[in-house]
């Protein structure tokens, strides 16, 4: 008889339902007392109503996996290996909050021409290189796959710093490009979007306290909304890459030209006279 409905499975289910003490949890409690107590405190503080369910799991890894799953539903995502039950001790979850950060590291930026979606490659080409490392050649080559070279050449001398992008584009239908500029310059003001893993580990990683968890939950919601805005814009741009990218470039260049004109007009006025328009 196959195991799916055999006596072996019935015995297993019966033993599980009795809530017998788990050997691996007992070993963890004794050999890693501090880690176990810290884990209990975290569960109690953040998921009190799930405490019994979490602690009823038969191994420390399964307990952490269940905790991570419930925690993510209510607060913000944790490192995926926790949810997969891939841990060796409670310390992996207790020593600091194992957050997932999405800040743009130099390695991430370098990977844009090869790994990122076409819209984000083109938008990156419109923004000044945050690392000033001269990766423009690979990026330009990647962009040439989607739009005419002549269009890219118009942009090359006009790549935007985040501040300039916000000044030109905030409040317009192209505002997402300004957000992307902040995103790749790690200048969004959001913890999750501005922190890469190197920064996370070199600065103090976040501690498990109520204030931090609440603040990170708010930051996560903002980061999620921010990323959704970008996603929608990527989709819009990819609906007609050459046409819409051209539209975007024209809009930026026109705005910049208007700004230059306005500056010249202001400079040419006699001292003490301001223009009424």
């Amino acid at each position, binding site marked *: *008889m196959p195991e799916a409905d*055999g006596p072996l499975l019935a015995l297993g289910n019966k033993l599980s339902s009795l809530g017998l003490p788990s050997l691996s949890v007992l070993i963890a409690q004794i050999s890693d007392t501090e880690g176990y107590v810290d884990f209990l405190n975290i569960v109690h503080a953040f998921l009190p109503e799930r405490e019994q369910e979490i602690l009823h799991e038969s191994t420390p890894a399964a307990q952490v996996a269940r905790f991570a799953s419930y925690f993510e539903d209510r607060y913000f995502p944790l490192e995926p290996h926790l949810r997969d039950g891939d841990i060796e001790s409670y310390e992996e979850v207790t020593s600091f909050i194992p957050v997932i950060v999405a800040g743009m590291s130099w390695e991430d930026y370098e990977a844009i021409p090869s790994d990122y979606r076409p819209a984000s490659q083109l938008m990156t080409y419109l923004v000044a290189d945050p690392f000033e490392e001269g990766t423009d050649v690979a990026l330009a080559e990647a962009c040439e796959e989607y739009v005419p070279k002549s269009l890219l050449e118009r942009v090359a001398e006009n790549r935007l710093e985040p501040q300039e992008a916000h000044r030109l584009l905030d409040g317009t239908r192209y505002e997402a490009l300004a957000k992307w500029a902040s995103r790749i310059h790690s200048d969004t003001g959001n913890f999750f979007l501005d922190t890469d893993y190197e920064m996370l580990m070199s600065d103090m990683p976040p501690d498990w306290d109520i204030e931090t968890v609440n603040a990170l939950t708010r930051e996560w919601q903002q980061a999620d909304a921010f990323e959704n805005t970008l996603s929608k814009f990527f989709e819009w741009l990819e609906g007609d890459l050459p046409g819409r990218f051209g539209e975007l470039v024209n809009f930026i260049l026109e705005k910049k030209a208007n700004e230059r004109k306005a500056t010249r007009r202001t400079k040419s006025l006699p001292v003490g006279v301001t223009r009424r328009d």
Partner: protein
Amino acid sequence: MKTKQLIRILKKVPETHLRLFSLAHKVIGEGGTVDPNKVAFNYKEIKEAIDEAKAYSGDTKEAVQCLKQMDRFSP
């Protein structure tokens, strides 16, 4: 595998008393949780008991695996 077969196999498994369970009582503190000081005091004994429990756990897993295989290949 029939239920009777499984019962016959399990009856042949010798009873085992793991030292870890009796030691666990010794290291519980007043709050009902493990007291690290008591653990430290009984460190050598606990380490041996943990090794014994881990070995037993490994053997049990192997036995369960064998039972599953028997189950899969039995008519």
